[in-house]
């Protein structure tokens, strides 16, 4: 319990530093915020235009497709809120600042993942979540208490998978001194899940369910919420969540043994 308190205190301190940074660069952050709002608005506009013209999107109604998009939006932003530090990891490696993380009495993985919470995305997450709930309430979809409970459990599982994928990016950073390409690749892959992953051709579909399991993060929870038969069973989704976090932690430990300071 004491350890959790200490880690929370460290995270809070990092968040406070990030808020101060944000206040210094107010104009830039305002532009980022506006950009994100425009992106969301235009994406929703596109989906509603499709809804007007297309009755069926593969095996889903267009209302159901909107739920897939809203789930993607939530998970993608949530991961950025907590794991923005990963985007800065390359710089830490190249400048040798990761050495300091290794010396501190705080888990270096915790520091690398969470030392720069994204306040801009936190602010963005609040209105967009409210908007998403409102949009979902206007759609012609069938949701029950059971499906909603399972959905939340699967969202926690999705967050675990997102954490695992971010840890893998850190591992790649330690091994190749580059994280930018990998993290943006992850962002591109998760964008596939704006639509149900089942609409893509094989072998991409299987890759998106089992190799970079964005399908397990977004498609399965959305299907469960909508009371549709999930493409793969919920047990498989949880197994992949647990498996991916265990695998990523092992790889992280292994990669630390390969680490050599690039600079100092």
């Amino acid at each position, binding site marked *: 319990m004491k350890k959790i308190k200490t880690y929370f205190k460290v995270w809070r301190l990092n968040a406070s530093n990030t808020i101060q940074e944000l206040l210094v660069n107010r104009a830039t952050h*305002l532009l*980022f915020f506006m*950009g994100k709002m*425009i992106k969301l608005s235009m994406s929703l*506009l596109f989906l509603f235009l499709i809804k007007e*013209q297309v009755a069926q999107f593969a095996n889903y109604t267009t209302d159901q497709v909107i739920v897939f998009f809203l789930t993607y939006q939530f998970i993608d932003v949530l991961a950025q809120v907590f794991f923005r530090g990963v985007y800065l990891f390359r710089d830490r490696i190249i400048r040798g600042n990761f050495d300091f993380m290794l010396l501190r009495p705080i888990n270096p993985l915790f520091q690398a993942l969470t030392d720069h919470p994204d306040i801009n995305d936190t602010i963005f997450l609040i209105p967009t979540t409210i908007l998403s709930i409102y949009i979902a309430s206007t759609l012609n979809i069938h949701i029950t208490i059971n499906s909603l409970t399972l959905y939340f459990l699967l969202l926690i599982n999705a967050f675990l998978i997102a954490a695992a994928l971010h840890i893998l990016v850190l591992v790649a950073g330690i091994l190749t001194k*580059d994280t930018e390409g990998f993290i943006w*690749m992850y962002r591109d892959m998760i964008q596939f899940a704006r*639509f149900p992953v089942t609409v893509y051709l094989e072998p991409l579909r299987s890759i998106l369910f089992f190799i970079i399991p964005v399908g397990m993060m977004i498609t399965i929870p959305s299907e469960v919420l909508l009371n549709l038969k999930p493409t793969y069973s919920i047990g498989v989704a949880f197994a992949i969540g647990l498996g991916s976090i265990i695998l990523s932690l092992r790889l992280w430990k292994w990669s630390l043994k390969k680490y050599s300071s690039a600079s100092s």
Partner: protein
Amino acid sequence: MAMSKYPKLFKYIIVLQQYWQNLFVYRMSFVVWRLRQFLSSFTALSVWSVVFANQKTAFGYAQDEMITYIFLVTVLYNIILSSSLNALSGEIYSGSMSTKLVKPINVFLSLGFQDLAHKILNFGFVILESLILYFIFKPSFIFPNQSYELIFIAWVALAALICFIINLLFGSIGFWSPDSWGPRFLFYIFLDFTAGKLYPLDILPNIIQKIVYLTPFPYMSYVQIQLLLGRLQPNQILPITLTMLAWTVGLILIFKLVWQKGLKNYTAMGQ
């Protein structure tokens, strides 16, 4: 002295070669960048294929027309909008621009050739990637009979020039501030939705189309493709050409003003 026997532009060809050499030092970054572009086109083609799975037309486009549109926009994006100038503002702010300013070369020609090197490389790769996409989706391309190749090439060149000047303008932010990413992020977000990358602009509601046409974005690939698809009336060609020319001249004038003001403000201590 030995250089004098070569044409004046020779030194800029060296800039072009140097840019390629530098790019291939970071091969992994380039491969990942290309893979990302490929995935983006793959997603768009997949989504539109699903949209047309149960119907022959949507938004006034037949399936073949829409797929042709997405293929063309992929290629044009890589020619017109790919840019090597993303780091320019950092170079200016940090002072490392000084080395370019004191060399006996024209800075803008040098940056232009650097941009050209970037575009040529991207164009080569996008052709390869399009071949892969062609074999995956097996589309039937639709091109009308009338030939506007020369106008098309002129519009592509003008759009590339507009994009180059806009990137120089973003770079100029470095004279005053290290943060050019905010405006640049907003610009690319606008571009993604208003240049027709994900969908043709004429599927948008009229009011949004009218607003979008007040910006230079529709001229950065959408109108060129509409021309090739035969979806423009002959009487629209001249007004579009004039608008593009007006944007080019206007942006050049704004850039000249900003660059001159910036140079007066420029300091490069410790460089």
